[in-house]
């Protein structure tokens, strides 16, 4: 290598520009949105709060799946395992042991965190696509274990009767705050992660894991951490969702429908971007309201759309948009600007 040496002082004075005008607008809107969710009891009916809670759960679960599949290259079809595990933990803690349910939501997150560690160590031995089916088997194992465990009332499921100690308004306030916190944690947390130096490693890994490893990224460790973080995020969504449902059964807790939802939202919206998750979640939420009544036909269309996106438009809607207009909502690029050269 021919040495082109620069003296330490010869480094040009550049500024690192991280934010863009579109990013500032989107950030303002996002924060306003989270505040609006937090103060829902003061402007929305209980029915609206329930709908928005479901939308928040879609966004959270989809973003967790996006981190797994979009960045870490771990295509899971069994994240419902962690949603159900945390949901059941909440019901057991609050209903059986009498712990304050709003405290139990946070305690229940320990269950997916603790379960995810040995499960990842097992599942990462499976090669590529086999990993996916392995995650599904794990969700099935959880469902069958819950169907046989007396402490969770086996197949009959549990009800969260302790919630009647709280007034409807108190419950709405708690639900709204939990939803706002969940969005902050899953979407805000992902954004923070992607802007940090781990974000650089994650994006390098997304584009090419082998090349990323050669640049010093510890791919194995990052994958493990993402898997555990995603389990906790899905657990939070599960705990909040089933707290609002007031009822949990093995069939509903470990419903593979959540895998469909996450995959549809992320693939149609645009994999590997936060913007895509928000677009996909909104589309799915509206489609579910309008066409949910068509039942099976609706799911045939959903399935075919997922298939077509995988075949012809892998970057999803956000990929098509960002190709035309360079206006990211959540900019994660580092742009070097030389102040001496306007």
């Amino acid at each position, binding site marked *: 290598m021919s040495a082109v040496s620069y003296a330490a002082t010869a480094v040009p004075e550049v500024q690192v520009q991280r934010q863009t005008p579109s990013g500032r607008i989107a950030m303002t809107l996002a924060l306003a949105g989270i505040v609006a969710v937090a103060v829902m009891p003061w402007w929305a009916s209980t029915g609206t709060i329930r709908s928005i809670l479901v939308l928040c759960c879609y966004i959270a679960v989809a973003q967790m799946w996006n981190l797994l*599949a979009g960045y870490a*290259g771990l*295509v899971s*079809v069994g994240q419902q395992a962690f949603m159900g595990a945390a949901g059941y933990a909440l019901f057991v803690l609050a209903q059986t042991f009498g712990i304050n349910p709003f405290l139990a939501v946070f305690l229940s997150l320990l269950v997916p965190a603790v379960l995810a560690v040995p499960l990842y160590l*097992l*599942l990462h*031995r*499976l*090669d*590529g*696509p*086999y*990993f*996916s*089916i*392995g995650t*599904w*088997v794990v969700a*099935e*194992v959880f469902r*069958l*274990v819950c*169907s*046989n465990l007396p402490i969770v009332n086996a197949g009959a499921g549990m009800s969260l009767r302790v919630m009647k100690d709280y007034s409807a308004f108190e419950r709405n306030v708690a639900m709204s705050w939990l939803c706002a916190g969940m969005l902050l944690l899953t979407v805000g947390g992902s954004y923070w992660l992607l802007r940090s130096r781990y974000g650089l490693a994650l994006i390098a890994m997304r584009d090419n894991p082998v090349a990323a490893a050669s640049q010093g990224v510890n791919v194995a460790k990052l994958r493990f951490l993402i898997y555990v973080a995603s389990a906790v995020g899905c657990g939070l969504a599960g705990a909040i969702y089933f707290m609002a449902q007031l009822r949990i059964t093995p069939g509903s807790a470990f419903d*593979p429908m959540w895998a*469909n939802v996450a*995959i549809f939202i992320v*693939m149609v919206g645009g*994999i590997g971007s936060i913007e895509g998750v928000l677009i996909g979640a909104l589309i799915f939420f509206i489609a579910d309201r309008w066409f949910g009544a068509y039942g*099976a*036909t609706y*799911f*045939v269309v*959903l*399935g*075919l*759309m*997922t*298939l*077509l*996106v*995988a*075949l012809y438009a*892998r970057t999803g809607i956000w990929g098509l948009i960002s190709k035309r207009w360079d206006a990211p909502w959540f900019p994660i690029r580092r742009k070097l600007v030389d102040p001496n050269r306007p």
Partner: protein
Amino acid sequence: MEWFDALVQGILLGGMYAQYALGMALMFGVMRIVNISHGDLVILLSLIGISMATAWGLAPVSVLIILVPLAVLMGWVLQKAVLNRVVGSDPLPSLIATFGLSIALQNLMLQIWSANSRSLPGHGIESQSIEIAGVYVGVLPLIVLAVATALTWGLDIVLKHTRFGRALRAASADVEAASMTGINPRAVYALATAVAVGILGFAAVFQSLRSTVAPADGPAQLIYAFEAVIIGGMGAVWGAFLGSMVLGIAQAIGFRIDPGFGVLAGHLVFLFVLATRPQGLFGKATT
């Protein structure tokens, strides 16, 4: 005696699972693809077979003669229309594409055939049994096991001794090197999927004779096939066959312990094998 009986029933059940697992092992070995709609294709073929049998009063053998070519055709179309576009080193596109196909197929079947369970009328063969060494063994499960053994043996011979088998093995070892020697990987892949789905034609007839099928049953069959392949060891067709036996025995013994424990016992054996011998019971360690 009761446990010996469970063992025998487990091996017979394994014969059924082997018919799902062979195709999956073949497709993964050749293309590194897992077709998530694998189980749904079995159910689709079963329901088509049942409808044909009820409409035209066909015997199971006639249904088999019609279904297997139909399955081969379905596999070929699946490869041409979907899988050839997503085959590659990244597992995501093929998983998502076949996942979407699986959702669409399940719900389409739900609309055409409703959620009811159905079975293929076997004209008495499903209830016949013979006594071997003090254990009553169903004639139909014995036929299933015999067909599964014949299919495994036949596939093994084809892979080892025919031109197609050599092309397949070459393509699975190194696609680029294989195409340099004049093999067209797309054609090889199309044939492999046609064979894999063709075997599901047999599975469909026997599944609907042995028990019932409903549109939502596909994912369970996919999971059993997958577990059998991993337990047995990836790649080898005899590994998938023996893995199916282990899975069948685990489930049969589990069912004897507690009816709610049968399927779970199979899953637990799978997880145990994964923890202790990730290359599978009969596979060779790759590293």
